[in-house]
């Protein structure tokens, strides 16, 4: 994608969801489950369009932890996409990762960070890193588009090669703040 921010200087906009999708592909992730978030819109579309991936929409995020465990029992790798508010829904299911050592790769788009305009998003968003730590999940941070490929690959390696639970937290600053203004 190429956009102009000024009349004189074109800048390359990095397609970070595509970089994450490529990382998932190269790490042989076959099952991608999600509760949608606006920040995951493009990645969800890329995964749906990928014939080597089975996408599984969930009713609640904890379902994706069970799905990932079942996939691993069957010899496949899974990834779980959610918004930060969904982390709280996962807590007891994280038992599977902690007691059985199932690999778990969570990709979490953050709300409740700097610039958030919905105060109801703030408590869970702010609690996410600690909640994950208490649940036995390591966290990595993606804040800049140019790091997306490297950080997503690292997260997948932590999950599948070290057989750990890991969450990649995608900063609100990267996704953009939801404006709550009518679309024109």
């Amino acid at each position, binding site marked *: 994608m190429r956009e102009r921010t000024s009349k004189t200087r074109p800048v390359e906009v990095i397609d970070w969801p595509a970089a994450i999708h490529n990382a998932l592909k190269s790490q042989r992730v076959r099952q991608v489950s999600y509760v949608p978030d606006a920040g995951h819109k493009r990645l969800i579309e890329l995964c749906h369009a990928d014939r080597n991936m089975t996408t599984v929409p969930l009713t609640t995020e*904890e*379902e994706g932890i*069970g*799905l990932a465990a*079942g*996939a691993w*029992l069957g010899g*496949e790798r899974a990834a779980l996409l959610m918004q930060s508010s969904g982390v709280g829904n996962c807590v*007891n299911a994280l038992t*599977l990762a902690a007691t059985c050592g199932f690999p778990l790769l969570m990709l979490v788009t953050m709300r409740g960070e700097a610039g958030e305009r919905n105060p109801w998003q703030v408590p869970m968003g702010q609690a996410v890193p600690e909640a994950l730590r208490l649940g036995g999940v390591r966290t990595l941070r993606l804040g800049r588009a140019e790091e997306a490929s490297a950080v997503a690959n690292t997260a997948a390696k932590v999950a599948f090669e070290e057989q750990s639970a890991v969450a990649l937290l995608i900063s609100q600053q990267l996704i953009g703040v939801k404006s709550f203004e009518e679309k024109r």
Partner: protein
Amino acid sequence: MKALNRREVVASLLERRDGLLVVAGLGSAAWDCTAAGDHPLTFPLWGAMGSAAMIGLGLALAQPKRRVLVVTGDGEMLMGLGSLATIGVRRPGNLSIVVLDNERYGETGMQKTHTAYGTDLAAVASACGFADSRTIRRNTEIAAVRSSIYRGRGPLFFQVKVKRDSLPLALPPRDGAHLKHRFREALLGKGAAAQ
């Protein structure tokens, strides 16, 4: 109440199980599966209540040529009710769920579950798009259930009304990592356990 013996039902479903892959929900369903014979291709849960059906879905999608059976209780299924809707999205033909429904939380003092108040789990599964979903009340129906699990086109759901008796514990291994490794090794071969 005319109801079935849960141990006999599970034993009938798991005898001569060939390559059947089994996920057992926590509590009595896991004890029932263990009483029928501990097996490396059974993954019994000791926690993560509400996850059994979703583990079955992940497994069924990963292993489309194998039959996958989730055996769980009514309380465990109720906690993961949304997973029936999620299974209804992908509808794997190789997945069956058997809910052993005694209408009670058997591990915590036999409190009534929602099925005791009328929740019809088979109707929920049917409404979620399962290929076949039935409530089973008679021993004479178990042979057909077995045949469907091993050969029918899924996803299939059987709500089996069972007696409210407390049976002797038959405990599977408790070490989750061991249960995971032995399952993968039996399914995927030596060396797969750690990959």
